[in-house]
């Protein structure tokens, strides 16, 4: 029998496989449940025991995107036959669609605030990290520690002062306010992560570019940035995940114009009974952008996380 240190044995492969599959099931089950619930009818969604097999319905999605009101059967009859398939779904419950719901706006708010703050965090983070990595900054270590220290308590601990401050500044419930807030929270992470990546890029590349006749900024732009792409991508994902999912500040600071999807989705329950399918549909759609973003940058993310460990 041969024995190898580097190649796993069959048994090791089996154990590893079982562990991975178990972990995948545990983490994916809630996701599957949410997605499935989105396609159930309200009675199916609260059936006990839970229904694994059910006839799919788009009711949840219709309810998510519309506001409806109840009408008398006579009025309903007077309206004539439903004009669209979603009209038909709604009318089964003696309701009519009175207009679109707020979900679209809230979703758009999430996109603007999430991507806006991610862009700003990464942009400022890259510049700051470059400076910390390459230049003599007075009190560099203290500054870096100070930046890190802003992460040492949960951000929500400063919620009240921020709320009061924002009220004074008129930033409550504004896109700008939320973008600035999430940027402030993410900036320490992005500076530290990116500084690590930029430190790994040998300074000789820039010096070679300087000698080749480029300015400092051109050297940064043409030599450092392409090589930091991996780090920038993984930093962007981390920043976006935080800003996208953030709930506590969003509840506290937004209620109207700038409300993001996370505080909005639970409020769907209240409008028209326990509408779990609509909530699940809202949550499902909310997952899509971040999944797409992560999958697009997946290659970079993996490389980014293992960077340093596998540098040759």
């Amino acid at each position, binding site marked *: 029998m041969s024995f190898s240190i580097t190649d796993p044995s069959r048994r090791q492969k089996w154990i590893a496989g079982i562990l991975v599959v178990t972990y995948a099931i545990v983490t994916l089950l809630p996701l599957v449940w949410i997605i499935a619930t989105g396609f159930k009818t309200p009675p199916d969604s609260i059936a006990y025991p839970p229904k694994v097999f059910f006839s799919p319905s788009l009711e949840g999605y219709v309810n998510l995107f519309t506001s409806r009101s109840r009408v008398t059967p006579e009025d309903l009859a007077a309206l004539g036959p439903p004009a669209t398939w979603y009209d038909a779904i709604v009318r089964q419950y003696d309701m009519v669609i009175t207009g679109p719901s707020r979900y679209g706006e809230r979703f758009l708010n999430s996109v603007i605030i999430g991507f806006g703050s991610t862009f700003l965090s990464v942009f400022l983070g890259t510049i700051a990290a470059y400076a910390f990595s390459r230049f003599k900054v007075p009190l560099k270590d203290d500054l870096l520690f100070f930046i890190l220290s802003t992460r040492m308590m949960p951000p929500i601990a400063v919620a009240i002062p921020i709320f009061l401050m924002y009220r004074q500044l008129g930033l409550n419930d504004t896109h700008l306010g939320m973008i600035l807030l999430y940027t402030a929270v993410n900036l320490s992470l992005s500076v530290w992560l990116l500084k690590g990546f930029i430190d790994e890029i040998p300074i000789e*590349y820039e010096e*070679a570019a300087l*000698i080749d006749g480029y300015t400092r900024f051109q050297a940064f732009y043409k030599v450092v940035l392409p090589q930091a792409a991996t780090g920038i991508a993984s930093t962007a994902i981390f920043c976006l995940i935080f800003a996208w999912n953030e709930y506590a500040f969003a509840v506290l600071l937004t209620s109207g114009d700038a409300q993001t999807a996370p505080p909005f989705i639970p409020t769907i329950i209240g409008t028209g009974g326990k509408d779990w399918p609509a909530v699940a549909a809202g949550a499902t759609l909310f997952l899509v952008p971040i999944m797409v973003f992560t999958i697009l940058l997946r290659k970079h993310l993996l490389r980014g996380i293992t960077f340093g460990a596998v540098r040759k």
Partner: protein
Amino acid sequence: MAQIVIKNIRKEFGSFTAVQSSSFTIEDGEFFMLLGPSGCGKTTTLRMIAGLELPTSGEIFINGQEVSQKPASQRDIAFVFQMFALYPHMNVRKNISYPLVSQGMPKAQVKAKVEEVAQILGITSLLDRPVGGLSGGDRQRVALGRAIVRNPACFLMDEPLGALDAEFREHMAEELRALHDRMGATTVYVTHDQLEAMQMGDKIVVMNHGVVEQFGRPQDIYDWPATTFVANFIGSPPMNFLRFDGSVAAGATAVALSGHSLAIPQTVEAASGALILGVRPENVHLDDTAALRGRILAAEYLGTTQIVTLDTAHGQVKARIGSDTVVRIGDQTGLRLDPRAITLFAPQGRALLSVANQRVLAHG
């Protein structure tokens, strides 16, 4: 092409002085070696010539123009880094053309120039390969290509062979020297390998602790070291030091060592105290009739020659003699030192001027 004059440059990093008022001149077309042990300030000096580091004080002239405070891009130099610094996200062709593109040269011209350089270096077949998979030697060639493509006034190289294995180093060293001879561009080359410096350089500057110890032709530095540091750093095995207390007057032609008179080149300076007599191993001959006595401790066979280590009243002495001479360990024998090849050092380690070495040392 360019002449480079370094005048009293000095570089401080905070309170640490990396280079202390160094001066030397690099003539047009020279292959010039900056030699010294690790941490002596070679790289710092080279980076100041390149403009990657600004001197704390002093002047640097390239072709008569004072450039010490000018940015690197305005000095018309090319720099070859120890780790090559090829841009990893570009292929070989892009790497080589990068400096030309930055000057705004038209595309067709860039292409022609790159092909020409690739031809010279024998890397035409590699042009479209990514730099990631290249061997050390090929990376070195690409780095050289990026340097020569611009036709700079001079090349600065910081231990360009340091990352290669020993066998290949020698080959690349020859290639580099041949390239230099063909192009004739002034080259400043940093190394801590004294053998490499001796073999390749037209001139050598020997540095130690940020100080220029000596500057001159390899042969002169080898024969007539200006300090004990140089005498010890250059040559393998290094120069022998025989320590003795005594004094020499100006014009003396002999010194007294344990009561025996030993002929030396006629001195120009006087000195007294704990003096050091320096002599290269090949200038020590075993001769039973000689007054200076020693006991043979070891013999190291090196093919045509052997290195014999002897214990004398003034310390250990190594002699390089023909390997046909039979030596027996433990034997007592006499040592005859070639009187024309002896250097006396003052107690602080500075070589005393004599009629033999003043031609070499007087200018420094």
